[in-house]
């Protein structure tokens, strides 16, 4: 889910850029979860990036996105970590996607801000041409598709890239609803996360 939607789902309608951003999060998630064959401890970062949410405000609204802002800023799952996890062009794709999202969310904060800070941020974003350029780039899927096209053209071997899952399976709250049946053992067509 995009940072914009996590911060405020009501400020505007869902846009192409939100879905494109979701593809970036899928890719990052898959890499940090399944490509961690060096055994780095990334669980805290994963929780921060993918699960962070605020306490409910007075109206009961809960925000997300702080951890994802840290990720697009390169603070969480920095380029050094990503390139340690994936040596294939996948790493380059992530960094190229990240650089567009970095610009899209420049100057933004997820914490609850007083009005004068909000207007300062709005002013900075308005005056920073990179924000509008990133927004333009994400009006269509073309830029992201071109990134994949370019890098897949380099002969990236996807046949067997040795994925593994190092996170211990945890009790799934949904499992009880399904009678605790382990999923995807015989269906053969489910990708389980």
């Amino acid at each position, binding site marked *: 889910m995009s940072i914009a939607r996590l911060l405020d789902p*009501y400020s505007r*309608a869902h846009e*192409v850029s939100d*879905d494109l951003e979701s*593809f970036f999060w899928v890719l990052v998630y898959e890499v940090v979860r399944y490509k961690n064959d060096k055994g780095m401890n990334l669980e805290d970062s994963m929780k921060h990036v993918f699960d962070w949410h605020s306490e409910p405000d007075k109206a009961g609204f809960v925000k997300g996105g702080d951890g994802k802002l840290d990720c697009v800023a390169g603070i969480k799952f920095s380029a050094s970590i990503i390139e340690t996890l994936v040596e294939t062009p996948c790493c380059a794709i992530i960094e190229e996607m990240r650089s567009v999202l970095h610009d899209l969310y420049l100057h933004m904060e997820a914490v609850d801000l007083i009005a004068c800070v909000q207007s300062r941020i709005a002013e900075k974003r308005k005056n920073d041409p990179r924000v509008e350029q990133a927004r333009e780039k994400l009006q*269509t*899927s073309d830029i992201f598709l071109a990134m*994949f096209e370019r890098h897949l053209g380099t002969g990236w071997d996807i*046949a067997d890239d040795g994925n593994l899952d190092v996170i211990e399976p945890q009790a799934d709250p949904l499992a009880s609803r399904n009678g605790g049946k382990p999923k995807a053992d015989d269906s053969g067509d489910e990708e389980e*996360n």
Partner: protein
Amino acid sequence: MTAHADAYNRTRILHRDVSEGNILITEEGAGILIDWDLSKKVIEDADREPRRHSRTVSGRSYISRGFRVLTELLPREHGNSCL
């Protein structure tokens, strides 16, 4: 991502729920974007209006059912790559 772009470019329908669990990978390594239940037709002029009070949906159940069929059946039969 290709399936997503095709749906949007041809019909202005956005998936709106792209996530790990909604991308299947075939044995051949092709991706399939599934679960279009939350998909919605983008209404161009009203696009940037705040939606706190109005949630405009255009033919949602019909469209999402149609796309379920398209995305869940067609790619498997024809091996379309979606990611």
